[in-house]
């Protein structure tokens, strides 16, 4: 197999991963899958997952996410209580709670789906909307419900609904759109950021699409069509002409060949590797799959997660952990629970406050997660979470957790953590240095384990997903 992604055979790349003696389906591979499709897995979950066929497991993850998408979080008592406070920061803690308490398919009764939470986070970054500007927790929550509803479903419906979503319209200054002055802002983002990407439309297309959206307004926090402000004239968008309304305008955009390529490119970047951009020959088969399946997202995700490429060196350890993946992943893998307001604040400090993306482009991701200030901040956050008096591991101390898994001695503990957290294994020398560090650390056993994990978080591999 070539080391050049540009030379990878698409047929091999998207074929289902078949475990072999050289590439066994083991805990480390399962951990890689769980980090990418969710926020990691506990040691027990990994033991359970490796007993199933990888393709079957991915299929069950997709089924779980599809079923979970039909459950309206408005019925969630925790969400209701957080909404009652009227504060979007509390809503962020609610979402982190869902991420942390999601479970992989298995014997237990289904709870929150890790993949659904991960996809909701992807779409939140894609259709970026910030609570600081929207300033209404109910609207932000409604948008989150929308993203969940369609996260593994129909892309077309999601784009149409997001276009009429009050939070989105407020965020893009499109709460009023009069025929005398069509607001091009929203039309531009539909083409550039949401559906087609740069180079696949003209300025004229934007102006014409903006005319389609005239009369689309937000009143009393709800979408309203003001027929008196709608431009009923003929429009020409992307080669099609007609007296289009907003829905028809979006339908024209959704028909573009660039749409599936653009979306698949982003999905590959989100799930597989930050750099380089996926080459066209790898994007095209999945773009065709997306189009063939009438823009259903689930089959594309399933193909990605079950593929040879996903389990190859082109994907493993080729992503920088986002702050949410870092913080929630830390707790998730260690059966942890903590004060999630503290975690949400910590994530904000290192660059990812959910419900507060930096701008309409969302988070840049990749290498941008790490700079001189966030690198220290990421490690500090790990230490702060581990040492916080509300942090518990399976309801107990780190010492109890290590005893439970029979990894109380430093060498065993380091091996265990290495497999659980790291995409690229530590070298022998690094492991030996950690063992020596553990021997020098003072304090009780839990404290020493916390210090060891904190030190592990300063190793570059810890920051790769």
């Amino acid at each position: 197999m070539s080391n050049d992604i540009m030379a990878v055979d698409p047929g091999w790349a998207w074929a289902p991963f078949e475990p072999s003696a050289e590439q066994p389906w083991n805990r480390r591979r399962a951990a890689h899958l769980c980090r990418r499709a969710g926020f990691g897995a506990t040691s027990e979950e990994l033991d359970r997952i490796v007993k199933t066929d990888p393709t079957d497991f991915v299929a069950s993850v997709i089924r779980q996410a599809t079923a979970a998408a039909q459950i309206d979080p408005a019925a969630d008592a925790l969400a209701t209580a957080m909404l009652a406070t009227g504060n979007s920061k509390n809503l962020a803690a609610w979402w982190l709670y869902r991420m942390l308490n999601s479970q992989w398919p298995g014997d237990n009764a289904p709870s929150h789906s890790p993949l659904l939470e991960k996809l909701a986070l992807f779409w939140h970054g894609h259709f970026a909307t910030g609570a600081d500007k929207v300033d209404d927790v109910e609207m932000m929550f409604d948008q989150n419900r929308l993203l969940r509803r369609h996260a593994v479903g129909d892309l077309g419906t999601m784009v149409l609904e997001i276009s009429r979503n009050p939070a989105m319209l407020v965020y893009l200054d499109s709460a009023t759109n009069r025929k005398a002055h069509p607001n091009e802002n929203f039309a531009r983002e539909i083409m550039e950021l949401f559906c087609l990407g740069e180079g696949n439309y003209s300025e004229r297309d934007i102006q014409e699409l903006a005319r389609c959206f005239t009369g689309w307004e937000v009143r009393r926090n709800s979408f309203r069509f003001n027929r008196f402000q709608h431009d009923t004239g003929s429009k020409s968008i992307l080669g099609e002409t007609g007296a289009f309304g907003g829905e028809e305008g979006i339908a024209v955009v959704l028909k573009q060949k660039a749409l599936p390529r653009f979306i698949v490119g982003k999905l590959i970047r989100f799930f597989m590797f930050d750099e380089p951009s996926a080459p066209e020959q790898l994007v095209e088969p999945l773009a065709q799959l997306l189009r063939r399946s009438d823009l259903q997202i689930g089959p594309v995700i399933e193909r990605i997660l079950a593929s040879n490429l996903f389990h190859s060196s082109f994907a493993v350890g080729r992503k920088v952990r986002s702050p949410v993946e870092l913080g929630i992943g830390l707790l998730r893998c260690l059966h942890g629970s903590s004060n999630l307001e503290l975690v949400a604040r910590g994530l904000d400090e290192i660059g990812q406050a959910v419900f507060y993306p930096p701008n309409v482009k969302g988070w840049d991701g990749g290498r941008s997660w790490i700079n001189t200030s966030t690198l220290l901040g990421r490690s500090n956050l790990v230490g702060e979470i581990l040492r916080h008096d509300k942090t518990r591991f399976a309801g107990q101390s780190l010492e109890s957790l290590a005893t439970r898994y029979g990894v109380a001695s430093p060498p065993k503990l380091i091996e265990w953590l290495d497999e659980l957290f790291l995409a690229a294994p530590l070298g022998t020398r690094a492991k030996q240095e950690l063992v020596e560090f553990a021997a020098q650390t003072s304090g009780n056993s839990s404290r020493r384990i916390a210090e060891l994990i904190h030190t592990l978080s300063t190793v570059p591999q810890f920051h790769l997903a």
Partner: protein
Amino acid sequence: MKRRRQSVLTTLFCGLLWSTFYSGAASAQPGLQSEERSALDLLPPGCVAVVEIAHPDQLLTTLTEHAVWKKILKQPEYHAAVSNPGYLMFLGIRTHIETQIGMSWREAYDTVLGGGVTIAFDQETQGVVTLIRSRDAGKLQSAAKKLIELGRQDAKFKGKDPLPEVDYRGITVYGKDDGRFAIVGPWLVMVNKNKLGQKLIDTLLDGSVDSVSDNKQFANARTTISGEPTVWGWFDVSTVRDAGLAKGLEKNQTPNPAVELLAGGVLTNIRQTPYITAALYVSPESTRLQLAAPHKAEWVEEFREYWFGPDGSGAAEPPLETDSTILSLSTYRKVSDMWLRAGDLFDERINDQLAKADANLTTLFSGKDFGEDILGSFSPHLQLIVNRQNFENVFPKPAIRLPSFALAGRLESAEETRTELRRTFQSFVGFLNVIGAMEGNPQLDQDIEIHRDNKIYTATFVLEPSEKTSERAKIQFNFSPTLAFADDRFFIASTKQLAKDLVDASHGEQRTERAASNTVARLDTEKLGQVLDDNREHLIAQNMIKEGHDRGEAERQIHILLELLSLLREVSFDVRTTDGLLKLELAIQTQK
């Protein structure tokens, strides 16, 4: 430092056990002069703090037979706690010791501590002494030998003698450095300073010429005791103050207006009073803590007269309460004087903030001086009332159900000030509407109602059609700001219902009947529990987010919180000046 403290504790604990079983042997000591004297007759005259528990055995009986303790025993969490291995190991050790000494731990406790426990601080030696009088030394003698054997056997394994011995005038003194004890007749003497220990043994053997009982202040303080307190304490504040050990008391100022309003007068008194006594009364029905300190009207600085009233005669009115009242607080405070005297009471930072607030409030009140004209029109009798809101037949029901609250008072010149207050209230609501409109919040609809022939000025949030039947409405729907008048009374309430209830409560009230208290407060814990229960779902959610619990754990914790609260009936607080004393009482009434 920590190790040293552990050493003291270990020594004290060993001493306690040792005395339990060995005090009988000491009764044979020569020249003993201790049998008939109380602990207070033994303490040096230089003691500046004394705490006395007259009947520790009765205290333990009260606690272990208390309804609260019995309810705790029934909780599953208690059963879980006593089933853990650490506790079971402790029980095993306890049973072993009980078997060896031939009596239960409770019998041993009653025998050793039954004569009382007294703890004191001696200023001369800077030492702390604990005097424990055992009730029946002879009964313990045989058991003592067993316990000593156990102690010595344990020490063999550890290689150290936990109780090194020295002899002082024929008395064996155990321990070392900063923690020693000795048995003298029925007394167990524990000290942290050698010199203090020697003083006490001398007194026990030779008889005392002078003791803390001869201290005039102390003797005066003893006369103020009412009933038989479970725990009683005396603190010589003047000596501590004169020694410059209480720097904080030298300041006139309090950190913020809320502390000043609540405790400014107490601070004034502590700066002058010679001593403070504390008495704790524990009974099956209640627990009361009474603090008392001598008080003279001439001690009150001019700038704190607002707190005590002229010649210290300021008395709060009886609290206004309704059937739904959770908390009532009634005080005597001439807030206008406090506002105008702020320069003497607070630091520069607070004064700057108050000056800004004064300017803004003066503008709000159409140029009338806020301190002089507006607050000056209030009589010193102010009350805060907090009620549980009943949302049973009310829509919309807020998702978070807050209690309503009101400030109640009287107007010095009612006719003139009513108009000013009404106009300001309506302007303020208008101002809120402008801000609310800018932020897309619901608007307040102003109205005037007549209730018992009194005008009440209301403001209620305008409902969206979708909100009219909502059971999870926004937090704003807890409020309907209202201003009401009844004769010379005014009520500024967070809800219309509370304003009406308070008008009803004040109707036909006898004004002349006033409590003798300067401040009186009552918290109805049953109603507080109901408010928490109204918001149970929200409390559970907060617990899940902040404590990281799953739903089941969070539900259990909130259940325990509410169960513990249900064990109480009410908490009350009272401050008064009477019989030359400033008295504070905190009382907790429990369920029987």
